[in-house]
């Protein structure tokens, strides 16, 4: 049985003195600051109104479920040209999107609106997560209380980190681990 490496007890007590946080932070910062300009072009580019509108419309070519922003078919090219022309004529990005929706229906939007019934699409996953998370916290607390009700002599895991001395049972288990490890050599 290998020792549980996740346990602080098995680590050198002075590791914090020997590896201070600031030094680690500076080291990682130094390495990444050398690497990041080499790897990443720059900060993300500003999204132009043209690209913003393209990202909010689905291509209706039928060959793929892609937004106009990324679809490579001829239909997407035509839509992109129309978007450029409309923006050039002074229409706002929202007006351009609205014009396409008026012509092709709600289905051309790449995502539901964040209003009206469509808002349900956006909030439901998070509401479900929050409700389930709350229920989970309540359940964990209840299970924790159930644990507190156990008599003091009940067996506990050798993985406990309360800092107490190991029980004779744990001591025997540790001895067995050491013996197994020696045999392994």
């Amino acid at each position, binding site marked *: 049985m290998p020792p549980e490496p996740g346990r602080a007890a*098995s*680590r050198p007590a002075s590791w914090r003195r020997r590896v201070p*946080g600031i030094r680690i*932070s500076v080291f*990682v910062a130094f390495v990444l600051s050398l690497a990041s300009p080499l790897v990443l072009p720059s*900060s*993300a580019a500003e999204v132009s109104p043209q690209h913003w509108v393209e990202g909010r419309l689905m291509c209706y070519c039928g060959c793929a479920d892609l937004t106009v922003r990324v679809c490579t078919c001829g239909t997407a090219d035509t839509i992109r040209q129309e978007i450029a022309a409309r923006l050039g004529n002074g229409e706002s990005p929202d007006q351009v999107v609205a014009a396409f929706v008026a012509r092709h229906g709600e289905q051309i939007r790449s995502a539901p609106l964040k209003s009206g019934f469509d808002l349900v699409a*956006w909030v439901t996953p998070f509401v479900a997560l929050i409700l389930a998370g709350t229920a989970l916290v309540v359940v964990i607390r209840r299970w924790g209380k159930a*644990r507190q009700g156990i008599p003091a002599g009940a067996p506990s895991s050798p*993985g406990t980190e309360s800092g107490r001395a190991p029980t004779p049972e744990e001591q025997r288990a540790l001895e067995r681990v050491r013996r197994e490890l020696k045999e392994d050599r």
Partner: protein
Amino acid sequence: MAEFGTLCLFCALAASGWAVIASFNGWRAQLGELVLSAERAVLVTWALVFLAVASLEYCILTDQFGLEYVASYSNRALPKIYKFTALWGGQAGSLLFWELILISYASLIVLTNRRRNRVLMPVVVTTLAFVSTFFLGLVNFMARPFVRLAFSPEDGNGLNPQLQNPFMAIHPPCLYLGYVGLTLPFAFAMAALATGRLDDTWFRTTRRWTILSWFFLGTGILLGGWWAYVELGWGGYWAWDPVENASLIPWLTCTAFLHSVMIEERKKMLRVWNLSLVIMSFLLAILGTFITRSGVISSVHSFTKSDIGPVFAGFLGLSTLVSVGLLLYRLPDLKGEHRLDSFVSRESTFLFNNLLLVGAAFAVLWGTLFPIISEAVRGVKITVGPPFFNEVMVPIAFALVTLAGICPVIAWRRASPRKLLEKIQVPFWALLGGVAALLLGGVRDVYALVSFGLAVFVITTTVMEFFWGARSRQKVTGQGFGGALLSLVDRNKRRYGGFTVHLGFILIMVGVTGSSAFKQETTASVKRGESLTVGRYRMLFEDMVSRESPNAEFMGARLAIFDGDRRVGTLVPGQNFYKAGQNPSTEVAIHYTLREDLYTILTGFDPQEGRATLKAYLNPLINWIWIGGGVLILGAWFAMLPDLRDRRRDAEGRLAEVESRAA
């Protein structure tokens, strides 16, 4: 040959049906011979299905266009390898292939459990044979691969050009191996519920099968992404298409199960939850198949609309009814000792990890099905596309990654908050250092900063786990560090295989972040001798080139690629004009480096003016997605290898079973 195939399929249906009846009645009446007969029937079904598949392959490879399936998905000029893969290019063939995988898995289960799990096996065989009978019913009556045409055309329609890609030769089999593999833990769970043998036998027996299914499903998803990247020509790899989502959802619930089952192993807790996750994963795999094949939701990947949708819906409903009914029936027997020593413990992090994984699965399912809900409620059909999924999934993914960083350093049962803070101090400082460096490097995108920062955090905690584990072992055994590390990992393959999977996942996240937050693109129409530029690359259009293969004619633009003044290569993006198809297929050309990909597409060519319209993307860090996938696969394989303790446990289990039978 077609008649022989039809006969094989019909006999296979009969054999599979017999396996259901015999195993169920054998179990009810405690007739061992009947159960053995059912097991033999499974093996016979396998042989018959194999012969049917071989017959169909023979018909495709020998161009028998008198068969509707061959005429629809193959043609004379199709290369041999794609003729072979045409087996899963259409609805009927892919269902037959699905059945072959299912019955192969079932046969392996029968063969490896001849002397083990004898109490569970009758119900396991009933379940597997029932699913097999359903699929055999489909290929016998609804999606028949051996239908003859009234005439024999000279040539076939050919395989969809986009499926003529090496990734497409591997991607569907991988996905099927994953989807179908989820039937095995489901069958054992059903057996545990039906027989009342609710101890840990069922999940210990299927643990490796579950990891294998998870592994194949994940590999299939990854290969699908790679295929989309090199074949579809839009510069991306994941479009949150309904069919893509359908494969991701059961993978997420299966991931949740692989984590939560560890709590059941250690503490005998969460038995209902684990059974629910296994049932959920199987039902979601069937739901995914239903989505792909029914045409209920439109998708680029789906098969042509067919009338098998209602039958699939019926099967899904029946499976749900039986499995949930059994679970509810056994609920009183499943009450475990639900006790947690502390809120701050690894058990708690696993529970939150499960919450997030199942929450993510729900979010994807919700987004996929919302167009149907919207149409039913408002009468208006809407689209739920990439912006929705990106916005909803990114925070969930960040929370999951944070847990992946904390989980390895937190102890089972109880960890004091002070010690936890102490342990995450180094990773936290590393995170701060990483974010500071990125800010200094000019990165301002908040998502990118959070993503890269969390990546540094998780990598640090994981590397520290390997390091401290090896150091501890080194102290006890006196081995060198390398030897101690190797023996540490070898002695606990599951734990360190799991950590390796985490590292692979983090590399994928780095690749996804880099290629989405820092992507650059350009489009230009250029004449010979003119250039276009993206990022630091200049692409000089030299000439048009063309070449002909038996199957297609290729036309492309030869581009000289310059990084600054240095020529670094030549790319030829183009289009394939398949002889059997009408629409040209985009053939992208990519200059791969670990730092970034230069991705070029020829979107049009005007021969009169000699102009090529080109699109180019610069995708930073994208190759780390595939490298991360490789690391993930490696970790999963490693986790599947048996540990010494597993072998000991297996031997003990077998001994106990022999003793109980002798008694």
